[in-house]
């Protein structure tokens, strides 16, 4: 059997190895068995990227390369050939993911959601007119208009939804094209700077420290070149690159640099061997499109709602159609009735307003640094139950900072907050004076000039991470470091290297009378200690005896155990007689002592957590969200950070901790007793799917360390198998499959790659974990508020459908016309819908568990309460007004029953009412319109109460504050104003079926509005009084 290599078994060792070994020895057999567990799962989504691994350019000699790519190492390609290749291969850029054509997007909007129902309604309208026309060519065009209005509604809402979607997509488009990368290329024997997009295979490029690698490059020469491959392999350590072929695996060999990684230092020349999508990173990025994008929870919820409404309206419509036809109604009437039921049932404006609500929240979130690409993701964040977070940059500040100091046998804690303002440890000791001097002098890092007004912590520094940390640390405490260095002129220096593991420099003293030289040294603590014979305690040199050395090791272990990078510091005053002022120090021969030095202290550094993160993690915890850390870092560092931000809480222990505490072997510990777990990438690789599931389900605090970005996908899938809604943060290109797979992928805005941002649903502008939590809060709030909106909408459905039913059964004049229901759906209710999106949380929504997947947006209690409770009151209230209008005009309710046929007969122009008055058809028609208007106004008035009660679902309105949400009042005002305009402004436009209504009818429904309010307060009171009781279960939505 030929085992097909797959992306995710590549890891760091590469598939090439597996492939090779598979053919021959059975050594890899067990490895196969282990990877089998993964296979079944990978197959469905991971494409092979075998081609990528056929890459063998790293094995070729320079000559072979020249032949293969038809280039010359010295003169480069000719411009003409480059142009040809560019035309053949396309630009050297990752092609953006395939977009759905705009027309398809638009058409989808036209048939999605309720649109189908409305199309049916419109077609029925025209059919009805057809029937009418065939009977009587002079019949009115009302049905044609109604059909046209319905189609118009569909098209307008379609355009609106399309526009909203396009707008949120544009946010991303405007998100900033990265400044075009430039590449230094040799063409026609000349060095040229060209946009890296124009690179082609065979180009000879030069790179230097700080550059982004413009394509996959086979190195031809290198001067101390180091690259950061973290975005590809997850390894955060810089890796040196040379032109030697060191490994069969292209990912491992030293002579290849990969597209989108960065060159940290040194310089190199290389030949482009892959460009654009055929680069390794390009192939991984294209994997992301192979990973299915799952439906967002809110999309599922809205679909559910549409299904309910459509189901109900079709059900009622069909049932009543059958009934009306079977009791010998004319088919025309039945069809018109069917239209009425459909239109009354469908909340036409709702879906558009849901989009508005979501985009409002998206805007609010953007202000809080969460840029949402996909509107529906707004809510997804709220239902998140697991967050898989990166460490570096997201949880931490992404800069080394001095965290602890050890001198005078004491550990001091330094301030690691972002401002770094007050260092409160004891600085009076003489030891500190010496230590600070070493820190200041034995340091090659410098501030970039021209930053006088920038706060110290924000200044840009030339130098590596630890030196930067030390420089800033000393600058904060001592003031102008550069000045101190100037006063202590450096006479000799040995920079840090990995063999010595120390850094040394020799300085003149700043006291002009002191002719001695000061030699300062820092480096790996154990190496430094080896060179020392004394130790400084309280400013005095003391012999370094056993007990002092022991104290040193204790401190060293302790600081190392905190996951911190520890440096040791020592110094020596070179006596003036042996080393006169004119002494010439030679760093190569080391003509100065490097032993019997005086040990001064230890300093430890860490990339400290962002100060807002612990709070945010606590919030997540109380919100029932599990935070999993996934990092490429060392487990100890990862665990230390996890502890300090609370991902592993203070009380919980890992298996190792328990073993250590009980002093037993790790195998003896019942692993379920450990709440926390630190799992490394290696362990993860050896786990079966079941083991991973078990791990994820049974440990509440998990840290994955030393993982590759690929393993993130495995973790995400594991979480999703548990039924969790998973949010994943990521920045590298390699993260994009995981970002895509996650329910909500969160890309880092600052350090994130474009591919990651493309695959993500959300972009975190400040890279801060705490911003995710505020996003979660917003997401939960919008879910609650949409629930309120749905409840609000459904209520009036009853008041719009019931009249149609009673009209057929009891046969009184039609209480509300189809067109009038549209005024409610598309007029008075629009702003209130949106207003509810502004409603504040009823109580701490972050103290709640994440939403259950079957905790529906529109659930049974919501439907029952809205339709059968409030909806019935609204309907009855509206009917009271309707009957009053008719009674006061002359038709008492008793006269109305069964009146429909005569009432609608155009030939009856002297219909007698309850008082013996006679009505022409048009007078009746006008009265009917007045009835519509009254019914409409009654619904509007009661919808005001309905709107107010929907502000809360559990608390009293007075507790929430009647005026807490000003937009609600805007909504109420809009309802009243629209109703006033329809009645008084447009009352004379007959096609709108509205009339000027007597003033008192406006107030007729007020008692029922009050009744609604009182009833709802009572409902909420019972819910609060008996939480968990019958009432709560059935009446709380």
């Amino acid at each position: 059997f030929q085992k097909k290599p797959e992306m995710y078994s590549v890891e760091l060792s590469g598939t090439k190895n597996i492939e090779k070994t598979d053919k021959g020895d059975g050594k890899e057999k067990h490895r196969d068995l282990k990877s089998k567990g993964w296979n079944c799962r990978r197959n469905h989504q991971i494409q092979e990227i075998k081609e990528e691994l056929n890459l063998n350019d790293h094995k070729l000699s320079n000559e072979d390369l020249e032949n293969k790519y038809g280039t010359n190492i010295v003169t480069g390609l000719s411009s003409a050939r480059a142009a040809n290749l560019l035309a053949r291969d396309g630009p050297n850029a990752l092609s953006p993911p395939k977009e759905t054509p705009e027309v398809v997007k638009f058409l989808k909007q036209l048939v999605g959601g309720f649109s189908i129902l409305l199309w049916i309604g419109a077609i029925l309208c025209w059919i009805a007119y057809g029937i009418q026309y065939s009977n009587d060519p002079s019949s009115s065009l009302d049905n044609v208009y109604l059909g046209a209005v319905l189609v118009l509604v569909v098209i307008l809402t379609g355009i609106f939804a399309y526009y909203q979607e396009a707008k949120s997509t544009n946010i991303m488009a405007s998100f900033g094209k990265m400044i075009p990368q430039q590449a230094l290329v040799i063409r026609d024997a000349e060095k040229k700077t060209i946009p890296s997009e124009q690179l082609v295979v065979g180009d000879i490029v030069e790179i230097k420290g700080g550059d982004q690698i413009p394509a996959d490059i086979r190195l031809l020469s290198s001067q101390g070149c180091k690259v950061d491959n973290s975005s590809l392999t997850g390894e955060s350590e810089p890796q040196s690159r040379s032109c030697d072929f060191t490994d069969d695996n292209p990912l491992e060999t030293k002579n290849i640099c990969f597209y989108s990684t960065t060159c940290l230092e040194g310089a190199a020349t290389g030949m482009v061997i892959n460009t654009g999508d055929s680069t390794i990173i390009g192939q991984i990025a294209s994997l992301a499109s192979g990973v299915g994008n799952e439906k967002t929870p809110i999309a599922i919820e809205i679909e559910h709602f549409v299904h309910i409404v459509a189901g109900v309206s079709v059900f009622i419509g069909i049932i009543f159609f059958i009934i009306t036809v079977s009791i010998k109604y004319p088919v025309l009437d039945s069809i018109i009735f069917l239209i009425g039921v459909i239109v009354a049932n469908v909340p036409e404006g709702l879906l558009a307003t849901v989009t508005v609500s979501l985009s409002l929240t998206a805007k609010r979130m953007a202000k809080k640094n969460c840029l949402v690409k996909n509107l529906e993701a707004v809510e997804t964040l709220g239902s998140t139950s697991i967050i898989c977070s990166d460490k570096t940059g997201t949880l931490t500040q992404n800069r080394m900072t001095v965290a602890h100091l050890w001198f005078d046998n004491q550990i001091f804690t330094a301030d690691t907050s972002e401002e770094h303002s007050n260092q409160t440890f004891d600085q009076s000791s003489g030891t500190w004076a010496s230590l600070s001097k070493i820190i200041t002098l034995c340091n090659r890092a410098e501030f970039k000039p021209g930053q006088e007004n920038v706060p110290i912590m924000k200044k840009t520094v030339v130098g590596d991470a630890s030196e930067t940390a030390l420089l800033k640390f000393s600058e904060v405490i001592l003031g102008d470091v550069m000045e101190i260095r100037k006063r202590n002129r450096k006479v000799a220096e040995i920079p840090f290297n990995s063999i010595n593991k120390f850094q040394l420099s020799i300085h003149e003293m700043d006291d002009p009378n002191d002719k001695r030289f000061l030699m300062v040294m820092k480096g790996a603590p154990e190496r430094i200690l080896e060179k020392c014979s004394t130790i400084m305690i309280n400013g005095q040199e003391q012999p370094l005896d056993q007990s002092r050395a022991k104290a040193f090791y204790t401190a060293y272990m302790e600081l190392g155990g905190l996951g911190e990078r520890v440096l040791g510091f020592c110094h020596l005053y070179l006596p003036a007689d042996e080393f006169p002022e004119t002494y010439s120090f030679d760093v190569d021969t080391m003509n100065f002592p490097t032993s019997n030095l005086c040990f001064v202290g230890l300093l430890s550094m860490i990339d400290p957590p962002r100060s807002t993160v612990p709070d945010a993690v606590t919030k997540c915890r109380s919100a029932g969200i599990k935070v999993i850390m996934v990092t490429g870092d060392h487990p100890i560092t990862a665990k230390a950070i996890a502890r300090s931000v609370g991902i592993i809480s203070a009380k919980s222990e890992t298996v190792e901790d328990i073993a250590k505490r009980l002093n037993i072997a790790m195998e003896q510990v019942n692993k379920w007793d450990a709440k926390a777990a630190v799992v490394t990438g290696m362990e993860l690789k050896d786990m079966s799917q079941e083991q991973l599931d078990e791990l994820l389900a049974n440990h509440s605090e998990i840290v994955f360390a030393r993982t590759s970005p690929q393993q993130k996908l495995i973790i995400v899938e594991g979480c999703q198998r548990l039924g969790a809604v998973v949010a994943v943060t990521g920045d590298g290109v390699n993260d994009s499959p995981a970002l895509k797979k996650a329910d909500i992928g969160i890309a880092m805005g600052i350090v994130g790659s474009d591919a990651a941002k493309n695959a993500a649903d959300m972009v975190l502008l400040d890279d801060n974990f705490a911003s995710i939590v505020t996003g979660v809060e917003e997401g939960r709030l919008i879910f609650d508020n949409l629930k309120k909106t749905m409840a609000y909408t459904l209520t009036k459905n009853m008041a719009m459908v019931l009249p149609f039913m009673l009209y057929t059964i009891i046969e009184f004049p039609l209480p509300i016309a189809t067109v009038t229901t549209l005024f409610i759906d598309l007029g008075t209710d629009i702003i209130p819908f949106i207003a509810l999106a502004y409603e504040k949380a009823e109580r701490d929504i972050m103290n709640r568990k994440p939403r259950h997947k079957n905790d529906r947006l529109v659930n049974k209690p919501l439907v029952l309460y809205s339709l059968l409770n409030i909806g019935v009151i609204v309907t009855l209230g509206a009917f009271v007004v309707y009957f009053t209008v008719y009674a006061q005009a002359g038709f008492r309710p008793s006269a109305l029953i069964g009146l429909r046929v005569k009432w609608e007969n155009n030939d009856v122009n002297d219909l007698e009412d309850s008082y013996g008055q006679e009505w022409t058809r048009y007078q009746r028609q006008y009265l009917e319109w007045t009835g519509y208007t009254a019914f409409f106004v009654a619904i509007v008035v009661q919808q005001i109460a309905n709107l107010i009660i929907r502000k809360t679902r559990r608390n009293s309105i007075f507790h929430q504050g009647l005026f807490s949400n000003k937009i609600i009042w805007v909504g109420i005002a809009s309802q009243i104003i629209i109703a006033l305009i329809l009645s008084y402004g447009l009352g004379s436009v007959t096609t709108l079926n509205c009339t000027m209504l007597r003033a008192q009818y406006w107030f007729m429904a007020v008692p029922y509005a009050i009744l609604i309010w009182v009833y709802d307060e009572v409902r909420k009171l019972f819910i609060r009084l008996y939480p968990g009781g019958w009432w709560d279960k059935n009446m709380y939505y």
Partner: protein
Amino acid sequence: MRRQHRSRRAPTFPHGYRYRLDDQDEANQNYLADEEEEAEEEARVMGVPNGQGQPTGNTWWQKLQLMNEYLWDPEQRMSLARTGQSWSLILVIYFFFYASLAAVITVCMYTLFLTISTYMPTFTERVKPPGVMIRPFAHSLNFNFNVSEPDTWQHYVISLNGFLQGYNDSLQEEMNVDCPPGQYFIQDGNEDEDKKACQFKRSFLKNCSGLEDPTFGYSTGQPCILLKMNRIVGFRPELGDPVKVSCKVQRGDENDIRSINYYPESASFDLRYYPYYGKLTHVNYTSPLVAMHFTDVVKNQVVPVQCQLKGKGIINDVINDHFVGRVIFTLNIET
């Protein structure tokens, strides 16, 4: 082994991990209660397909089964996810809710309708200005008949005869009073007192009364058409100026109608028939009529006729309403 762990630490599979999270919030207890119950329910639901060994797949058959189980679950004795007890409870609650709601609404309606008089309509502006209707009327305002074929006009005669039964002189004299003409017949007193009605005798219609000519002129090609103004409670034409009727050709040659006789000859509705006090108290009120006797109309041709009311406070040109203050009909008398 794994199963055991799960049951101990994470009771239900998909949401198991949630139970590992500490719950410090007492206010959330009911959420938890909900959740637990849902989880139980879920476990039950999930248990069934597991038992049959077909946990995956979404075939129609399985959907149908699930639906069927939803409708009636014999194991739990539940229908629509409710047990009998739960159903009866919710039905009782809703019964009481609707009963009290009905009571509230009934009280509201009752008190509201106490304020609405049964004798006088509260507002009459919708029914004003008065509409007009003609007799005979049978679904159509087009009078097509052939003088020589009685079958074509017989139904008009029957209709008119039937309509005029209430105007028979004997009946009018018996039921109604002969009140002085030319002035309103105002009857003060409580609105619930019975009101007297003025006589409008069939004989006032002379040639169109059907007394002398039982065919109302249809047999001679001189049809009678009665015009009736719609009743409106309290309607009073301007004093001293009774509402008049006048007919003419609506479109076309005015000479198509050479003469019309009106009965009563004034061609007006006498003031004594106003005001109308409503059907409850003004029981025997008979609407006054004006008969139009088309004595000389062009034959064998469609003649559109418009009869209008004329008088102060009368509107006869509402565009949308062809029956307010006017009536339009066609005569096509074939010989």
